[in-house]
């Protein structure tokens, strides 16, 4: 068995309004950071997983994202896998 670090990024789809991102954008402007035209807030889930190959880990992580970690109606996800 090998150990893998799995980093899952979940973010709202581009077409979905992001109220948190809007608030962050406004706050950055208020702090004097000019030139920021957009902000989107997402989530990162880091997992440590055991398995035989990164393909196997990828399949499992993909299923986790579809079932629980993301809501496919409004969110997209991406998975990064690195062997430890």
């Amino acid at each position, binding site marked *: 068995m090998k150990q893998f670090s799995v980093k899952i990024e979940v973010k*709202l*789809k581009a*077409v*979905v*309004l*992001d*109220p*948190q991102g*809007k*608030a962050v954008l406004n706050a950055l402007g208020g702090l004097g950071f000019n030139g920021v035209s957009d902000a989107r807030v997402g*989530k990162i889930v880091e997992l440590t997983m055991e398995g035989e190959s990164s393909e196997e880990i990828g399949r499992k992580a993909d299923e986790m994202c579809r079932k*629980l*970690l993301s*809501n496919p*109606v*409004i969110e997209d996800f991406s998975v990064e896998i690195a062997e430890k």
Partner: protein
Amino acid sequence: MPNFGVLFFPGSNCDHDCYHAIRKILAQPCDLIWHEETSLAGIDCVVIPGGFSYGDYLRAGAISQFSPVVSPLRELAGLGVPVIGICNGFQILVESGLLPGAFIHNSSLKFVCRWTSVRVEDTDTPFTCTLRKGEVLKLPVANAQGNFVLPPDGNSSQGRRIVLRYCGDGGALTSEANPSGAEDNIAGIANSRGNVLGMMPHPERSFESLLGSEDGRKMFESVISWIKSRNADGKAV
């Protein structure tokens, strides 16, 4: 008399409000059912109350959809038994796929706790069958993620019916009347069959004039009347 079942999850906090409304005010049989229960036999109407199940971790309602009680809930929903999800209960129904759509943070980014007016758009559901189309109900909301969005891809295969919309006191659909920024002023939707209803406002908090409104009670009186007429017709609910 219809048997009500109020489900509760770790972090539900409106379960006793619902129980009080049904058991004490309407004097109907009502069970409080823990989310680990695997059977809902004998229940004529399921109520999924508000709160913060599993602390709203990940997304509101995301983790509760895998509780054991959701399996028999799916079965009853499929049989046409009335199911109402209120606030976090609505979020759970959406996450479990029993209703379409999703929730994001309120457009104001604030927790919104206030009275709203909602207009009845569809009276062909158990919870609205004794109401008038266009009737305006005064009901309170209390949520941070009540900003309902329909699937952006416009997936038409998933049946949906808009049952309640936020409106002004006179019934006009305005953005000021929409406390969370919900798409199309949607306050409540049902599945295509109409037996599964999700709504953000709290009918159980508006059962007594002392609390400011009795309009929420009308929705529960409606479902009681619906169940009784089904039973009188000899139809299996």
